């Protein structure tokens, strides 16, 4: 994905971004400022040369920018956006994780919320063990601690 010009944008100013794996992206300012860090850069006038993003890989950055473009489009209706978001975030775990990290790093509030909500949905209804398996989290409690925390967080209907 290279330049993302939408017919609605009139400023025409573009930002150049470079991902961790050296992929470059050109994106309209109006789209990029969905990310708070780019917003500050644009406001402060610091946008010469490609901005390096050592913490985001090309594939993820492409996805994120696609999301930003969709959300920067003024003609899209709320219903359509919601549908888009639902489809966008319905990805496998690894991708979701990358999106979450990227949204956090780039400080894109709405995308972060979307990703967090999705992760929360994946946690709901699962037992601690199931949660660990889903996210590959190591259980670092000692057996005594585990018992203690179990008591502390007794479920309504049993262990």
């Amino acid at each position, binding site marked *: 994905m290279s330049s993302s010009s939408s017919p609605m944008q009139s400023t025409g100013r573009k930002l150049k971004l470079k991902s961790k794996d050296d992929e470059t992206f050109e994106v309209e300012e109006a789209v990029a400022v969905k990310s708070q860090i780019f917003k500050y850069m644009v406001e402060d006038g610091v946008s010469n040369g490609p901005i390096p993003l050592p913490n985001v890989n090309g594939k993820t950055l492409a996805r994120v920018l696609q999301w930003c473009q969709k959300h920067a489009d*003024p003609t899209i209706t709320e219903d359509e956006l919601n549908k888009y978001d639902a489809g966008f975030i319905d990805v496998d775990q690894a991708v979701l994780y990358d999106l979450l990290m990227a949204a956090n790093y780039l400080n894109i509030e709405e995308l972060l919320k979307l990703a967090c909500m999705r992760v929360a949905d994946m946690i709901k209804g699962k037992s601690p063990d199931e949660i660990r398996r889903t996210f*590959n989290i190591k259980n*670092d409690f000692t057996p005594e601690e585990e018992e203690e925390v179990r008591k502390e967080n007794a479920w309504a209907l049993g262990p």
Partner: protein
Amino acid sequence: MQHHYHHRSQSHLSAGVPTTPGGETQFASEAKLGKKRGSYNCGRCGLPKKGHSCHVAITTAAIESTPTHADSSVAISATSSLSTTRPPPLRQHCSNLRRALSFDDDVEDVRGGFPEPEAAYDEEDLQFDDPFPDPDSGGFPPGCLWEILRRLPPVGLLAAARVCKGWRETARKLWRAAEELRLRVPARAQVGFVGSVLQKCPGLVRLSLRMESDVDATMLACIAFSCPNLEFMEILKSDTAMNRITGDELGRFVADKRCLKSLKMEGCSNLGGFVLCSSSLSTLWLSDLFSLSKTVFNCPNLKEISLEFSRQQNDSTDLTSMVDGLGRYCTRLQNIHMASLRLSHSVVLALTGAQLRWLRMLSLVLGSEITDASVAAIASSYPNLELLDLSGSSISDSGIGMICNVFPETLSRLLLALCPNITSSGIQFVTAQLPLLELMDCGMTICDPNSENPLAGESNDWELKNISKTKLHLVHQKLIIKHNRLKKLSLWGCSGLDALYLNCPELNDLNLNSCKNLHPERLLLQCGNLESVHASGCQELLIEAIESQVSNDFLAMENVLPCKRLADGSKRVHVPHFLSAQSYDDDKKQRVKRQRCNVLVR
């Protein structure tokens, strides 16, 4: 306080279709008692402001018509066929007045309201030098984890805390920061479940419990102990649970909780009587009250009160002295809602005798003994009302005349459902005389409830000779309503209506449920902002007529094709999905709403 509007209008009638999933529609099912619950959308007031205290009574759910009721009402109408007023119709609706709170109806997930992280972070957590986790820990960075876990419902958070140390810590912080908790207590909850949850969030300010297991004073004690800062408390009750709290126990709780501002409780049939003393209490809602002996409301700062009595016939509460006491101690009352079959003119006199200078919303429903004289008393003592609900009363068109005389500068909501003695001229008069009106409910007014026999099938053929003179004003009625501000109009059950013309540019919601005789060719809707029309129980042809009328309006507004001249001189015509041209020029990132009007038939 928001009430659920649609529910009442749809489910009270024998032929009506309740909105709840799995709700029953047949007459036969009405014999069963019980409350129906539904999703709580912003209610009847039609004004979607959050926190808006709209004191509107809605009746919902189960139709409690027992055979004995039906018999007695038939007898009454036979003897009074020559009189000019009719007795109120049999109470076909069971008003388990549900207030529409923004409560998650998803019983699996009860959302806890955890605050934004900024509010709760300690110094050390603010440093996000390394936004990426140690690959071995498999977790999320601290900031993300908070964002994720705070979106979990309370029980989800309990599970999350057991995953690993980092999660436990974050969960603990979330609990400590929690100010609001909405919890569903399942039927077989472990003893102490609520207690153990409450102990995690000592900072709780708002608590809402939906009890599916019985509740008694030990719950109150637990709450009193664990939540020192509690200001808003609500105890909701499922059909199967019992509320055993007594008046004494409640009184003690209220007296001890010095910062309690709002108390809402359902299922209060075991109170028996109470003395409530609190200088902090400003909102009080009690429902399912029954046979209260002594009641003292020593709450000088009370602003809103809602007292709903159970439908049982042998309620021995002395409403007059109760209201008398209320008026004496709680002089700051602004919103009053009372629902009881025993409401009468003397109760109204007790109310008007009090000096409630701030009274703005008054709702006295189900009282068939409330008459035009009551309206006169109310109008003369409280001329600045913004909401008046006298549904189920015996007021007539002359009462309406008084209302229009006194309240045109303030009244924005008028509810007169199930008032058998008002006519279509009265209704039209209201819409002509009250310029600020935004909500009007005239459900089941233009109809003859005694002829509401769904077993007789479609009543398209009227045998005019069989209709007595007194009932002529109940058939073939026409309504012409032109109003600039009206937002919500309900004509549910007006089966005597056969022609309707509405020119209300601000109308959002129109309820025509069970307007069985509304003629498809005598319907004209010129309401460009209409979002929903309820048409359950209406003829097929009428539904089609409605659909075509509302989509015509919609299409008419779509004939705007903004175009843009581009820098190179070319012109691009953009076919929009939005209705108005001005949002095109709007600089802000405004999400454009496509206004489609929904015709709802169930």
